[in-house]
């Protein structure tokens, strides 16, 4: 079995997809870093000071002004109100939520990329994991060996889990190394607030506590990893069901992107909670960022993601063992 897994991982390394993903990260992260630095600089310039308290206060006031707009949908109003309460809490406790430094960038980056960017990177390697064996004709070689089919598929799945972990961790490491050039490499033990809870449109702060940033990062990347594994598992199923690389990838891209779109477009439609790709923003539970969709809780998100993964795995294994490949 270990031999099979090794074999699959070797194939993955040889296929150079992982290197393409690393390349994408190396190119994009500096761009994000630069953009972030520009935004901070511009904000500081507009107000005329880089004192974070003043900037934060101004942000709160600006959001209060947005609230007075009559064209704003109710759910956005609730979202902004919670955001304001959280920022006021930061201000009151004298904690800068955006203290500069590479670890802060890592935190912002994972919070922003967990629903779209990271899943897309995972899709790149997962969407044709099985189907590529069809297109290259190697599936026959693979299946005519005296190994049970489920073992072949399992070894592929395990290697996919490893690759997903590798991608998430590389994102973390690369975003640290690259953004540190501008922001500096310090700030691991900066205090971060966690434990915000929402109840009936009000922010509960009784469970709010400080976490050192390194621990927060470990947890945030751990949560994004769970989200990525669901994406990987569903892509894995698609790669079993669909034989062409292009359509497999197309299906997964459409699914991930529409999950993000649905979150923005129709947060009031309760049924979208049960669509796996609207549940990817697990890090929001950690940061206490208000959640736009009504009724979303952590157990529900984990449950939905878990259920999709299990069902996808069952479908993948059943289909793969019954399929007549030699025809």
């Amino acid at each position, binding site marked *: 079995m270990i031999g099979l897994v090794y074999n699959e991982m070797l194939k993955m390394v040889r296929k150079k997809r992982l290197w393409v993903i690393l390349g994408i990260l190396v190119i994009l992260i500096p761009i994000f870093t630069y953009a972030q630095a520009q935004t901070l600089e511009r904000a500081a310039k507009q107000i005329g000071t880089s004192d974070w308290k003043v900037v934060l206060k101004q942000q709160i006031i600006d959001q209060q002004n947005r609230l007075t707009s009559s064209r704003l949908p109710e759910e956005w109003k609730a979202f902004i109100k919670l955001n304001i309460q959280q920022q006021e809490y930061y201000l009151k406790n004298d904690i800068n939520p955006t203290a500069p430094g590479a670890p802060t960038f890592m935190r912002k980056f994972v919070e922003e990329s967990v629903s779209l960017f990271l899943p897309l990177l995972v899709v790149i390697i997962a969407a044709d994991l099985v189907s590529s064996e069809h297109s290259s004709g190697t599936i026959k070689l693979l299946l005519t060996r005296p190994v049970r089919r489920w073992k072949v598929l399992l070894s592929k799945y395990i290697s996919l889990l490893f690759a997903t972990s590798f991608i998430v961790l590389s994102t973390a490491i690369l975003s640290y190394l690259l953004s540190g050039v501008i922001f500096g490499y310090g700030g691991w033990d900066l205090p971060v607030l966690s434990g915000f809870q929402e109840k009936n449109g009000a922010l509960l702060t009784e469970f709010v506590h400080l976490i050192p940033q390194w621990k927060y990062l*470990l947890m945030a990347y751990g949560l994004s990893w769970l989200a990525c594994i669901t994406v990987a598992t569903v892509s894995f199923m698609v790669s079993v069901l669909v034989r062409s690389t292009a359509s497999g990838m197309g299906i997964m891209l459409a699914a991930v992107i529409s999950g993000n779109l649905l979150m923005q477009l129709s947060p009031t439609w309760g049924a979208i909670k049960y669509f796996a790709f609207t549940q990817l923003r697990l890090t929001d539970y950690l940061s206490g960022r208000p959640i736009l969709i009504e009724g979303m809780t952590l157990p529900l998100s984990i449950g939905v993601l878990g259920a999709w993964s299990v069902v996808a795995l069952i479908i993948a294994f059943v289909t793969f063992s019954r399929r007549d490949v030699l025809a």
Partner: protein
Amino acid sequence: MHSNHRLRWISIFAVAIASFSILLIGSIMSLIELFRPQTSNLQQSASQKAVSPSSPTVGRIVSLGDSLTRGIGDDSGKGYIQLFREQLQKSSKSEVSLVNLSVSGATSTDLRKQISQPETANLLKSAEIIPLTIGGNDLFRGSGRLENTDPETVEKARLTYQENIDFILKDIRKQNSKATIFVFGLYNPFGDLSEAKQTNEFVAQWNQTAQQVIAKYDRVVFIPTYDLFQLEPKRYLFTDHFHPNQYGYQRIANRLTQLVIDQEGMETK
């Protein structure tokens, strides 16, 4: 060849298992964290923080008030306050900073509440110039027409306004005894309508009220705006017929700039 193969085997598995387990640990930690919320440990740290001296905030202009200070109606989004800052910047060598704390739609009661917040107080402490517009929403209730044509209701609102503005000025003075406060008077956006006589009277009354309160304080300047919009309201008002447009704001900004530049030593700073 064999050792090479072995090395590759080890390195691939080492990287794979290491990344897998780090993230697994992270996700388990976060699930524990999120499913079993800890009670807050903040009280302690917050009190510790309070002892340490807060960092000095630089902010020469801190503006307060309603949609006028926000700049509603100006197509460029600047409003008088940004125009004023730009003009002041031209004659100043150091950076002119601006914190705009105005909330569109605010009444004097809202501003009174806002002033009492500790963070607002902190910002006011370091201010040198405090422009403020307030009262328009008390009198005109925000949207379009004058709703309270009943003189009694208007009179009641005026008394509240009087009390609030007194409270606000007293409070700002308590935080900051040096800054110059500029209070803008009201103008009549309905001066060209049929009820102009009545509304003009109200606006005049309210402005008088404000001036009377202001007279009690040092370094508080009343800037009239009534005259600016009196003759040709259409030209200087936005299409909502309530807020100034960019030309209107330009005129308001000019008044403020004039007064500030006149101040002793301001140009050399």
